[in-house]
Each structure stands twice: as C-alpha cells, then as structure tokens.
C-alpha cells in the first residue's frame, strides 16, 4: 500500500504511544522493583528509577515464600494441563472417530457444559471439596478442573480435519482405535495439543477465586493469592511488593515471548470454528 510519508509517521507515532501506554503498568512494576524503599514511597514519584537495588528480590524471598508460591502454581498448572490434555484428547477422539450409542445426546451434554458459568457450581464444589477433606491440598486445587469441554471441542475440530483416508489405510493395516489414536492421531495433532496446553496452563496459572477459597496455609497458596496478600501487610514497603509482583509475572512473560504464535493460531481456530 502506498501511503504518504506523514500518514506513515502519524501511524508510527500513534502505535508507539499506544504501546507505551499498554506496557507502562508492567514497566512501572519493573522499575519499582529495583528502587530503594525511600524512593518507592517518595513524592513526587519517580518515573524512572534513580537507584538500583537488585537485593530487593532477595529480601522478598526472605519475607514471603515466593519460591513456594511460584512452585505451587507451576505444579498445579502443570497437573491441570496434563489432565486436560489426556481427558480432552480421549473424549475428542471418541467424538471425532467413533460411532456409539447416544453420541448426539452426550455431545449436546458437552455443549451445554460450556454454557454454565463456573461460579454457579462454586458453592457446592467448595462444600464437596471440604467434605472430602481436600481443603488446602493439591487435589482440591486441581481435580475439579481436570476435564474441559472447551478443550474437547478444540481437539475434536482438529481431529475432524485430518484426512479420512488416513484412518482407512491404518485400518487396512490392522490398526485398531487405540493404536491409531496413540501413534497416528496424537503425533499429527501436536499444534492443537500445544495450543490447549498453553491455554490451560495460563488459565490455571492466573486463576484467582478458586485458590482463594480453598487454600489457607502459606505453603499451599498460589502466587496470585500470595501476591495480593503482600499489599495487606502493613510494614511492607512498595519496592518489595513490586519485587514480588515482578517475580510472579516473569514466568508468564517468558511464556508470551515463546508461545505467542502458538496461542494466536490456536485461539483463532477455537474462536472461529469452535
């Protein structure tokens, strides 16, 4: 497209300004994280830090168990991610490749689950988890989220796109459903599986309300809850709060750097065809 030079300049100026505004809250936390306590609570606030105190990060580790929080969150997210990949791919295979009694009914049951907002089941689920004595446990944090209707759909759509001839050829070679699923379909579906993996990991890593409800003890807290509790501690100085936030958002930032493409592609597939 041929644009005039000024229009081009204006476009860049506008986009840069927008990008700066969007990035600012994150950059602000990085700046605050390395300020001295005095500078962090000074007025007028510094737009860029005039002091550099990387030892804030060490101090935050001494103050709250950030490493435990992050470790917990990683573990919980990884369990849910793995669980969702297994349950969703099994169910998606059944829907995409098999004929069985009651398929339309069960399929519409899956569709219906996507309509139910999670908050509606929150109270009974809390009571169930408490009844099982799962408060403050990894089971309590993960088991309710191991199955996903959205993920099943995403994978089913992908499975359906694979050529039918492939299955017929495998069939003639004497390949049963299980072998076909494990050794043909799954390897071919790596892009879709990757998308679901990133999506479910991020979702769990960032979840807030459920961990808030069912964890009480420090060693079981996830990082989202741990961070928001930081600011309620009276004596805490802001630079340390922000050092904690920086540590908490670092893993997701890395994930964005490496997984953006995968995420965009997969979310588009889910959004447009799901």
């Amino acid at each position, binding site marked *: 497209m041929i644009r005039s030079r000024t229009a081009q300049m204006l476009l860049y100026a506008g986009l840069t300004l927008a990008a700066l505004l*969007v990035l600012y809250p994150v950059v602000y936390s990085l700046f605050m994280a390395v300020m001295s306590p005095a500078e962090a609570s000074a007025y007028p606030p510094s737009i860029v830090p005039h002091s550099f105190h990387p030892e804030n990060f060490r101090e935050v580790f001494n103050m709250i168990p950030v490493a435990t929080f992050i470790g917990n969150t990683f573990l919980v997210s990884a369990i849910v991610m793995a669980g969702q990949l297994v349950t969703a791919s099994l169910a998606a295979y059944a829907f995409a490749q*098999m004929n069985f009694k009651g398929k339309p009914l069960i399929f519409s049951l899956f569709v219906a689950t996507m309509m139910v907002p999670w908050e509606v089941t929150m109270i009974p689920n809390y009571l169930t988890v408490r009844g099982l004595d799962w408060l403050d446990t990894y089971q309590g944090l993960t088991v309710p989220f191991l199955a996903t209707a959205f993920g099943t759909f995403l994978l089913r759509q992908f499975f359906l796109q694979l050529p039918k001839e492939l299955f017929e050829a495998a069939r003639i070679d004497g390949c049963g*459903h299980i072998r076909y699923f494990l050794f043909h379909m799954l390897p071919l579906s790596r892009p879709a599986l990757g998308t679901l993996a990133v999506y479910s990991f991020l979702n769990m890593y*960032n979840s807030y309300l459920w961990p808030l409800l069912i964890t009480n003890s420090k060693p079981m807290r996830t990082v989202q809850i741990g961070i928001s509790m930081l600011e309620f501690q009276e004596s805490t100085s802001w630079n340390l709060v922000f050092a904690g936030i920086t540590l908490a958002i670092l893993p*997701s930032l890395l994930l964005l750097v490496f997984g*953006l493409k995968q995420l965009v592609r997969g979310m588009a597939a889910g959004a447009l065809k799901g």
Partner: protein
Amino acid sequence: MAVRARRSSKRSSLQLRENVLAYTLLSPSLILFGVFLFYPLLKSVYLSLHSTDPAGRIAAYVGFDNYTALFASGQFLDGIRVTALFALLTVPTGMLLALVLAALTQHRLRGKRLFQFAFSLPMVLSVGSAAVIWKFLFHPTLGMLNYMLGLAGLPPVAWLVNPDSALLSVSLMTVWMNLGFNYIILSSGLQGISEEIYESARMDGAGAITVFRKITLPLLSPTLFFVLVVSIIGAFQAFGQINILTSGGPMNSTNVFVYSIYREAFVNFRFGTGSAQALMLFLVIMILTLIQFKWVEKKVHYQ
C-alpha cells in the same frame, strides 16, 4: 443364511466393542463433569431452596424465601445494575480499542512483532498481579495516575475511594487487562481475510475507510460477534479486580454479581441465598447469550 447371521453377529459384537471403547474414552470427562458440574448444578438448586448453618449444613426448607429476600432487599437489582454498567463501560471500549490496534498492525509494518507483543501482553498477566499493580497506580497521593494529572495541570482524582469514580476506575483497569485477549482474537480474525479481496477493492479505487467499512467489518463480523459474547460473559464474571481494588465498595458502588455471591457465601456464610444468587447469574448469562445468538447473529456475515 448361516453366513449372513454369523456376519451380522460379528458386526454387532464389533459394534458392541466400539461402544464400550468409546464410553471408556469418554468416561474420565463424564465422571469429572458429573461430580464437579452436573451434581453441583442440582445441588445449587437444592441449596437455594434451603437455609443453611454457617458450616453449610441444611437447616430448614424455606421454599422460595431466598429468592424473594433477594428481590425484596434490592440486592439482586443492585447487582444487575452495577454489573450491567460495568459491562457497558468495559465491553464497547475494550472492543473498539482492540479493533483499532488490530487494524493498524494488520499490514506489513516495521517492528510489527514488537507492537503485537506489546498489545497482547496484558493477556498473560493474571488478574491477581495486574490488580495489585493498578492499585498502586490509583493510589490517591503517591500513585502515578494522579501525578500525571498534576503534571497536566489537572486536579487529582479519588479513583477508588469515591463512589462516583470507583466503578470507572475498575473498568479502566479491566479494559487494559482484556486488551490482550481481544487484540489477539481480532488480529487473527483479520489475518483470515484474504489479501485478494483487498487488492481488487483497491483496484476499484476504494479508499481505506470504505475498504474497512465495506469489506473488513462484514468479513470480521463473526469474530467481532465472538469477542462480544465472550466479553459480556466475562464482564458478568468479574471478580479478582473487584476483590483486590475495592472489595465491592465504596458504598456497594462496585459490588458486581460474582463479588456479591462470594460475599454472601464465603464471608457471611449464607450458602442458601448465595446459591439463589448464583442461579440468577446463570439465568442472566443464559438469557444474554440467547439474545445475542438470536438477534445479533442475524447481522453476522459468515463466509
């Protein structure tokens, strides 16, 4: 005869095996949905018709008292009003902003990946961290927002403390937080529109704005529709930012639906009324979704 019978019995045993295998594959999902979705849904209905003690045990059957109390106290209508206002403040702005940015970064552009990274960034921040960051940006005296206003010669704003501006402030943060998701979805929708259509329009001498209005918008309408549905449902499910920024205050001005359910069930330990409220939320979201599919989708152009 015998051959056919044997063949059909072989086929039916094959069909039986296929059935068994299919249900085995579905069973993990079905069992989990049963325990953590279908059963709780029924239990919600049951709880909403009862009063409970603080431990969550059933105290008495109360019929529809929980519902009438909800309407009589105005709690339900207030919750709806605040949530609807919140949706009105966040959804159109969020979509418009994301659409403009996605359209501007659609074409070949130097540093395109950097812009894409910046605009998708808020998506990966959890509501927990993002809300704490914004809480400090909103700080009345030390916060950066008021400092900037001061530099521009404007009076400071009591962002989260004033009932008139609290919901607006929470919405501002929410628009920022949702930008990443909306931007990603809309840009990938734009990518799906083939370059040839644009080319032929340009050959016909159409200007950029005409192209956007006559080609981009109609072809993007399924994606816009998807973002609209997801954003509205998301607005009705907002919780984290409310809990951290305002705790529903000041004077209930930010007491959105889910926050009010949370307060009823897990702060006041009234699981019965909490469940009644949760079911009303379900109803509202269902109606909204149906309306959107019925009316809005008619205007959506599918390729």
